């Protein structure tokens, strides 16, 4: 793990990170008792999605981009449908928006339940993996499986499949679920809400490393509710606030040699997207129950300790169950599943709040609806600079720990982000020079 360098420095390296999605590692160099450099290495190969979207029809991105990730396909479907509808000047109905939100609740439930209990909780309870944790905490793991199943069932009822839903299209859905189908989910959703609220109190009892960072949080904002499937504005701790359609003017992507995923800056600086950002910028939009649970768990209205993201994720899990119940109970049969969308030449942006944070897509299409350009900016790539800043701070702060403990602490600092490396490496940066 720790190697001595010729110049007296030391290297701490983890070749393959555990309990994250995709393939990445970290590399930290120390010199004279200080951190010299940190790198989050993403070596999962690029996947060329933006390249092969060009030339495809404007109706295809919801199905194509959903395949970028098996954990957060709905995030891609929501951002791409919104972008296309914006370009074509089409507004869907309130019912279609509600159904998109319900589908998104299913994704948050699946993803958050997996990360909180199966991937992240072992860090706090002192286990190498959920398999060892299950021996001593069977009831927690059983609850996690129950929660995840409720999410899977919701995704299946609305999206047609638990993974990579097939019911989403530009303009809405192919088919709306019926009241009867949704009501069948109700007992599991109620149980899930109660379990998740109890879990907020449970995870709040974990020991949290003492570390705070001065992040620039960036998240969507919606006048009526906590942001999931869409927002009207992008807001930031820095005070920046602008319509979603202007995000490409503020975010710039760039390549660094040690990562196969593009880094990004917001108004020229590193920034942070994800549950901590959403929560800190939208606390007032949570329900009274989830606000109360959060405050009881010792969170303030903002949270700057990345290790406490597990509490925030659990608050969001409870909120997703509440929202799902609210939508299921209000649902009536007979709404049109979609509105027609005819192609209009132009460029547009769609954004949503993936479980791991803000994701946005930008497309340009021609008058026949053929995609001329595509840009997909997922949360994990935007967070790479913040992850590295946390690694640097953690390595400095706990430099006196032994190698094993320090490595573990740094891995935890990465898992705080629930990084999705497969998503981050979807991009294309291929240059061909001919002479």
């Amino acid at each position, binding site marked *: 793990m720790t190697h001595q360098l010729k110049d007296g420095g030391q290297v701490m390296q983890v070749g393959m990170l*555990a*309990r*994250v*999605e*995709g*393939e990445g590692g970290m590399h930290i160099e120390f010199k004279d008792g200080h951190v010299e450099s940190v790198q989050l290495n993403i070596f999962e190969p690029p996947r060329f999605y933006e390249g092969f979207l060009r030339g495809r029809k404007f109706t295809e991105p919801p199905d194509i981009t959903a*395949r970028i990730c*098996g*954990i957060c396909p709905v995030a891609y479907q929501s951002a791409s449908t919104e972008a296309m509808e914006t370009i074509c000047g089409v507004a869907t109905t309130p019912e279609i928006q509600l159904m998109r939100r319900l589908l998104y609740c299913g994704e948050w439930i699946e993803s958050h339940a*997996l990360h909180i209990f*199966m*991937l992240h909780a072992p860090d706090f309870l002192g286990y190498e*993996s*959920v*398999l060892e944790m*299950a*021996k001593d905490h*069977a009831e927690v*793991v*059983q609850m996690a*499986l*129950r929660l*995840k*199943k409720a999410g*899977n069932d919701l995704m299946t009822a609305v999206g047609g*499949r*638990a*993974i*990579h839903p097939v019911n989403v299209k530009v303009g809405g859905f192919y088919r709306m679920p019926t009241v009867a189908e949704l009501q069948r989910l109700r007992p599991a959703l109620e149980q899930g809400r109660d379990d998740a609220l109890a879990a907020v109190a449970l995870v709040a009892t974990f020991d949290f490393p003492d570390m705070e960072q001065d992040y620039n949080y960036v998240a969507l904002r919606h006048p009526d509710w906590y942001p999931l499937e869409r927002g009207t504005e992008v807001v930031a701790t820095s005070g920046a606030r602008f319509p979603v359609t202007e995000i490409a003017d503020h975010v710039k992507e760039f390549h660094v040699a040690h990562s196969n995923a593009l880094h990004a800056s917001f108004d020229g600086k590193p920034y942070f997207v994800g549950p901590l950002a959403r929560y800190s910028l939208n606390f007032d939009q949570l329900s009274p129950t989830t606000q109360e649970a959060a405050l009881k768990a010792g969170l303030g209205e903002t949270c700057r300790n990345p290790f406490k993201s597990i509490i925030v994720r659990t608050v969001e899990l409870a909120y997703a169950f509440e929202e799902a119940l609210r939508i299921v109970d209000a649902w009536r049969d007979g709404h049109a599943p979609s509105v027609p969308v005819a192609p209009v030449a132009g460029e547009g942006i769609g954004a949503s709040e993936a479980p791991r944070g803000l994701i946005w897509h930008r497309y340009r299409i021609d008058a026949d609806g053929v995609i001329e350009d595509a840009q997909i900016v997922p949360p994990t790539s935007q967070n790479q600079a913040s992850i590295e800043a946390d690694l640097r701070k953690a390595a400095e702060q706990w430099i006196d720990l032994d190698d094993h403990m320090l490595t573990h602490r740094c891995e935890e600092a990465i898992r705080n982000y629930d990084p*999705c490396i*497969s998503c981050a490496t979807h991009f294309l940066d291929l240059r061909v020079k001919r002479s």
Partner: protein
Amino acid sequence: MTGGRVLVVGLGSPDRGDDAVGAAVAERLGALAMDDVDVVTREDPTQLVQLWAGHDAALVIDAVASGNPPGRLHIREVGDAGEPLPTHAFTAAGRGGSHAFGLAGAVELARTLGTLPTHVTVVGVEAKSFDFGPMSPEVEANIDAAVATAAAELIALREEVQSCA
């Protein structure tokens, strides 16, 4: 309620090349309409932990990546008294990835939580590719053999639970 019945699960993503083989074999077994056999397909291995609860016997068909020639069949008994699955071959495959934890993880989690059936047989089909698209010709060509093998294992499992019942 489930005593004397065998649960068959075809595991894997239908879109990811040879990862589709689990569901393809399971569907063929389902078409045989055997008595006392329930057949389902799943993409997410974590669901197995709950799905298995209350069953005495289960058969799982999944794609495997162990470096053997594509199409090669593997049979493992992983029930109560069985050994854990080799982690890499059954975890790295397709949907398993490193985020979810694959069939090997599901078996061990179910063992710990007490939902692992007494008899679980895994029929693995060596995969060539987990890329998007259809199954490889090598795996496709071995589906009949995989179905025959899985059917034989299924009959053995059913006899096992029904003789105990």
